[in-house]
């Protein structure tokens, strides 16, 4: 299952130097690879294995997920706002899909 419906939540505006919380949620089955279907066949693993957050070209935060992360993975992390810029986040899954979302940050 491809990843879909990414949602990001963060303050509408922030000042330079401020530390803000960013919450990210995406719809994904996060199939562990441990489960079997009704016929006893193993259901192949399909998880989002990597989440990254960048500010312009600089890495803010990265998470590598195993099958122990719940379906529809939610992640909260922080950013120390360096100044005006663009926040962009990426989710990569086992099916080879990558979802990228970009958000300009309103820095006052």
């Amino acid at each position, binding site marked *: 299952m491809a990843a879909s419906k990414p949602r990001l939540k963060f303050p509408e505006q922030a000042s330079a130097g401020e530390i803000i919380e960013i919450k990210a949620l995406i719809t994904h089955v996060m199939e562990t690879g441990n489960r079997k279907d009704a016929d006893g066949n193993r259901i192949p693993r399909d998880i989002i294995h990597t989440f990254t957050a960048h500010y312009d070209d600089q890495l803010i935060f990265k998470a590598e997920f195993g099958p122990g992360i719940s379906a529809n*993975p939610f992640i909260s992390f922080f950013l*120390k706002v360096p100044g005006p810029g663009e926040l962009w986040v990426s989710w990569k899954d086992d099916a080879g899909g990558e979802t990228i979302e970009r958000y300009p940050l309103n820095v006052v």
Partner: protein
Amino acid sequence: MTSRSPAADRLIDRRTLLASTGALALAAATSRPAFADTQAGRAEAAAADAPPLVPTPQFEQAFAKVVGNGTPIEGRVVLELPEDAENGNIVPYKISIESPMTADDHIAEVHLLSTQNPQASVAVFQFTPLSGKAAVSGRMRLAKTQEVVAVALTSSNTLLIGRHKITVGIGGCGAE
């Protein structure tokens, strides 16, 4: 959890640390099955303490890979989970570590490990000075009642550890 202050940690030099962790390991072998590291200690611990919480071989491997020869320091990693989780499919976790998060002194990496899940490594988080705060939260799966462990690595390669015991109702890893 442990209530040792960060200041107390800084006062301990390597030798006393090694000695005291040695003592801790002995204590663990007799009273805390989760971290007994010898076969004999494990059997003894399992017999002495019910229910037995012997970490999986997967956990031992993953833990050894993270810490190498180092001995992680207890006290600075705050790992928050509920005491009880009815549903092991969605268990909220929160990890935070006090750190200035400067280029010279920051938390670089945090490993979230399960002692009882089929796959021990739940997540690996990487922080940068841009993170501002070494804190992360999310939702994890837990197969059964167990101890969850978070190991952090600072930019100067110091290992820190936090633990949390949690009772799980319905397991959530889709195992078997």
